[in-house]
C-alpha cells in the first residue's frame, strides 16, 4: 500500500514562503509527476513528503497514518536523487544491501534480494565495483536498485535522469515506466522535462510558485488546461496566445492556439491570419515555423515535414475553431 495525502501543507524557509498551501491526494499505485518551472518548489514538496524537510504547518498522511513528524527513516519511502547519492566507500553490492542491513534482515535474505535486484537491473557483473568506477547510467541503476530492494510504500524521484545524455534518458525513462508497471508501487517523479511528464505520468501536478495549478491526467492537462499557465506549460512547442480585439471576437480576454492546431495555406482563407515566415526549423518528421503575424507577434506553427518553407515566405494561418482555448482576465480557462 502507498497512498499519500497532503492536507494544507505549508513550508517556509525563514521568511520566505516556498509552499503557501497545498492539498493533494495521491492514490496507491499511481505514477504522479510534479512539473513546473525552476524554483517553483517541486523538490521542496518531494522532500516534505520524504521527511527530509519539516513542514511549517499542515499534515502529511501515508496510508492514512499521520507521518508529519516522522523522521525519513520511519516513513518507509525510497528516494532516488538527481546526484544518485551512492555511498562512495561501499561496493555496488553494499550500496544496494544498505537499506536491508538497516532493516536488520538476515544475511541470506539480503544476498538473495541484492542478487535478484542486480539481475533485474543488469548490474550483476558490477557488484564488486565502487560507484566511481561506473558510468552515469550504471550509477542511476544502482540508485534504483537500492530503492527497490526494500520494497517501499512509494518511490520518490527528484529529476533522476537530468544528468544523463539524451539517448540514455529515453532508455531509462522506459525502464522506470516498466518498473512501475511491474511493481505497481506508488511513484512520485519530479522533472522539468514535460516530455517525461506527459509520457510517464498517470497524473501530473503542475506547480507554479508553490501552488498547484492543476492536477490531472496528461491528456486532461493538454485538452482542458485549467488556466493560461498550464496551457502554456504543457505542450511542446508552447501554445500561442493572442490578446485584445481578436480575443474579444471569441468573447475572451485572451485566446490560445496550439502550434499543431493551425491550417497553413499559401493563399488567404476566410478568417485566416496573415504572416511572414521568420525561421523554419526542420526536424524531418515535423517542421516548426516561427511566423511573424502582424500585431500578434511571433507564433509557432507545427506542420508536417513535406512542404519546405523559407525565410520571408508569405503564409496564412487558420486556427482550428474547435480547438481554441479561451481565458478570462485572470488567466482562468473559460
Amino acid at each position: 500500500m502507498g497512498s499519500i495525502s497532503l492536507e494544507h501543507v505549508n513550508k517556509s524557509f525563514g521568511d520566505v514562503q516556498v509552499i503557501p498551501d497545498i492539498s493533494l491526494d495521491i492514490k496507491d499505485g499511481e505514477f504522479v509527476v510534479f512539473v513546473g518551472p525552476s524554483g517553483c518548489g517541486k523538490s521542496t514538496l518531494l522532500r516534505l513528503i520524504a521527511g527530509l524537510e519539516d513542514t511549517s504547518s499542515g499534515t502529511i498522511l501515508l496510508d492514512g497514518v499521520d507521518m508529519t513528524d516522522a523522521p525519513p527513516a520511519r516513513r518507509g519511502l525510497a528516494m532516488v536523487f538527481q546526484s544518485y547519492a551512492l555511498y562512495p566507500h561501499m561496493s555496488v553490492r553494499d550500496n544496494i544491501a544498505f537499506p536491508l542491513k538497516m532493516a536488520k534482515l538476515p544475511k541470506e535474505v539480503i544476498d538473495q534480494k541484492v542478487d535478484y535486484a542486480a539481475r533485474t537491473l543488469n548490474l550483476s557483473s558490477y557488484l564488486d565495483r565502487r560507484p566511481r568506477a561506473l558510468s552515469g547510467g550504471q550509477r542511476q541503476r544502482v540508485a534504483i536498485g537500492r530503492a527497490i530492494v526494500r520494497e517501499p510504500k512509494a518511490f520518490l524521484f527528484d529529476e533522476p535522469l537530468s544528468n544523463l545524455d539524451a539517448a540514455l534518458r529515453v532508455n531509462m525513462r522506459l525502464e522506470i515506466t516498466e518498473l512501475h508497471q511491474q511493481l505497481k508501487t506508488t511513484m512520485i517523479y519530479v522533472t522539468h522535462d514535460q516530455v517525461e511528464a506527459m509520457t510517464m505520468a498517470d497524473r501530473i501536478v503542475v506547480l507554479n510558485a508553490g501552488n498547484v495549478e492543476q492536477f490531472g491526467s496528461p491528456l486532461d492537462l493538454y485538452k482542458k488546461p485549467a488556466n493560461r499557465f498550464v496551457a502554456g506549460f504543457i505542450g511542446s512547442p508552447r501554445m500561442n496566445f493572442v490578446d485584445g480585439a481578436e480575443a474579444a471576437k471569441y468573447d475572451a480576454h485572451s485566446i490560445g492556439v496550439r502550434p499543431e492546431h493551425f491550417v497553413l495555406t499559401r493563399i488567404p482563407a476566410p478568417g485566416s491570419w496573415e504572416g511572414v515566415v521568420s525561421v523554419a526549423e526542420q526536424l524531418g518528421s515535423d517542421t516548426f515555423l516561427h511566423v511573424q503575424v502582424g500585431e500578434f507577434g511571433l507564433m509557432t506553427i507545427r506542420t508536417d515535414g513535406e512542404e519546405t518553407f523559407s525565410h520571408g515566405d508569405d503564409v496564412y494561418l487558420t486556427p482550428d475553431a474547435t480547438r481554441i482555448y479561451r481565458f478570462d482576465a485572470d488567466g482562468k480557462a473559460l
Partner: protein
Amino acid sequence: MARKVSTQTRIGFTIGAWVVALLLFSPILWTALTAFKTEAEAIASPPTFWPQTFTLENFSAVQERSDYVKHAINSIIVALGSTLLGLAIGIPAAWAMAFAPTKRTKDVLMWMLSTKMMPAVGVLIPIYLIFRDLRLLDTVHGLTIIMTLINLPIIIWMLYTYFKEIPVDILEAARMDGAELWNEIVHVLVPMAIPGIASTLLLNVILAWNEAFWSITLTSGRAGTLTAFISSFSSPQGLFLAKLSAASLLAIAPILLMGWFSQKQLVRGLTFGAVK
C-alpha cells in the same frame, strides 16, 4: 590544473626548500648530536660537530634520575585519551554544525575558536581550584580531561571543515534507506570522512603531546607527562647540556616517528584540508 614551471624555478625552489628545512631541523639535529657527547664535550669551546667519544651514558642517567618510561606512558595516555575523547564529542558536534546548522552556528564556531586566543594563565586559578576540589590534581585522567577541553575547538573546527565537503545528499540517502542518526554517522559519515578524521587525530595527538603549560602546572610526580619531565631537567640540571639533550631527544622521539610515518595526513590536517 598543472602549470608549466621552468627547470630553473624548480631548482631554485628545491634549493630554497632544503635550506629552510635544514634551518628548521638544525636545533633538533644539534640536540640529537649533543645527547651522545660527554658533558665536557657538550660545552667544549669551540664546539665539536660530531661526538668525539660516542656515549650512551646520558640516556641511562636520565632514565635513572627521573623515570622516562613512566612519563612516556603518561604522555601516551593523555595524548591518545584526550584525542579519542575529543573525537567522540567532536564528531557529533561537527555533524550538527555541518548538516543541521542554525542561524547561530557560525557564531558558536567563532566563539569556540576565540577560546584558543585567550592566554591559558587567565583561567589557571579557577581551573586549579576546581581540580583541587575534585581531587583531579596530579592525576592522568584529570590531565586528559583538561587536554580534551583545550583541543576540542580545534577538533570540531577541523572535523567541521571536512564534513562540509561531504555532499549532504549522501547522508539524506542514508536517512531514506532507513538509517537512524547513529547508523548514519557510523556507517556513512565516518567512513567517508576517514582521511579528515585521521588528520584531526594525528594533529591533536601532537598538540596534546607538546602541551606544556597545563601538564606542568597541574601535575607533579605521579601524572607528569614528558613535557613535565623535560622541564624538570631544564632548571636544576640546566648546566648538564648533554643529559638535557638526551632527555629532550627521548621526549620528542615518539612523536617525531609518528609524524614521519603519517606525513601525508599531517599536511592535510595542518592546512585544514586545503591541500588535496
